[in-house]
């Protein structure tokens, strides 16, 4: 074989190997969740979860019934429903990601956290997130799903700009009830 042919084939093989390495999916690709990204006010529908975030509020104190607590609260008012099955459909995954930190929906007030979802009849209510006092959040990402393990199921992802929202002195969580919207 001619010398130039040897070099050309060798080079082509290196480029091919680089290309294969480039397009190989990462190790966790086979178990990634299926995110459905929607904005505030839009309905996001996944495999067995449909969410509409109606309003995002911020407050220096949150209350629900007799419970009340001061803090840096972000309160999400939303409608949530199941799509194909009511069996074991709880709103188990509710996180807010701000500046690389992940906050879970607070278990302190009564809220839609771990609420049971029905097919076709949305539940309406709130989720409360407690942030540190010294955090002035801007870009946040709300993630909602049916299983605390997010792999291989739909996630409703809602990006929120928290810097545009005025901070109230007190905000009451909406009671969890059948939606009338």
């Amino acid at each position: 074989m001619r010398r130039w042919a040897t070099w050309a084939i060798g080079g082509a093989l290196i480029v091919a190997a680089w290309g294969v390495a480039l397009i190989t999916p990462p190790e966790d690709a086979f178990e990634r969740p299926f995110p459905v990204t929607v904005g505030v006010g839009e309905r996001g529908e996944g495999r067995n979860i449909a969410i509409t975030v109606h309003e995002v509020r911020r407050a220096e104190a949150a209350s629900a019934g007799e419970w009340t607590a001061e803090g840096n609260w972000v309160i999400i008012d939303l409608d949530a429903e199941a799509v194909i099955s009511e069996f074991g459909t709880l709103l188990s995954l509710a996180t807010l990601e701000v500046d690389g930190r992940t906050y879970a929906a607070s278990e302190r007030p009564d809220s839609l956290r771990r609420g049971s979802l029905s097919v076709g009849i949305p539940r309406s209510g709130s989720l409360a997130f407690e942030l540190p006092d010294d955090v002035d959040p801007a870009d946040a990402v709300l993630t909602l799903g049916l299983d605390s393990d997010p792999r291989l199921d739909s996630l409703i992802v809602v990006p929120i700009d928290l810097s545009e929202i005025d901070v109230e002195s007190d905000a009451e969580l909406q009671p969890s009830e059948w939606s009338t919207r």
Partner: protein
Amino acid sequence: MTTGRDSSTRPARTRFGWLRAASDRVPTRWFAGIATALFLAATAAFGGLATAATPDITALEPGDEHRNDQVAMTIDRAVLIDEFEDAGVYVEEGERVLALLVSVENTWDEPLSATPDSSVTQSLTVDGLGDPPDSVARYDDATINPVLQPGVPAQIVLAWAVEADAFDDAQELKLTFNDMTLHTGSFVANGQWWTDPVAAATVSIAVEDIGAGG
């Protein structure tokens, strides 16, 4: 026949002759010496054969905070009380409650669940109480098994049901703060969790016997 053997080995010798010539140049008799020198150099680089220093266990004053990459903890109070159902612990006949009031802050970037058998309770061991607490609750609104949000401080109560005569008023309680290691699951496990507690600091606090409550 010798001539026959020569003719069969000669082609092999010419084919791999260059390999033989190359390997003859490798100074094999120096390998043992080179390996020994590398071993000694590596040993010296890692601090020689001296005993590795064990991590110091800091003795903290009461009220001092112990902070690591997982949680920051301060022991506020240790009380002995007849019963403390708000903290989620129920006593039987002949038992009282030993409760620790602890200020905690999650210093990690994910929520930490503070259940009796969680990485948060494993971060604290009490001499004389081998078991994890019977209950963990928030001090302000009595939420059982609270979730510690990143950077949000909280006061929690760790409560044990103990034999009524196991602890006395003003008895010094020795507590150990443990540092945990963040473990990332792989292969069949998924996610990250804190594990492997190692003692990092100690603190003593006097138990207050507050009788029926107060």
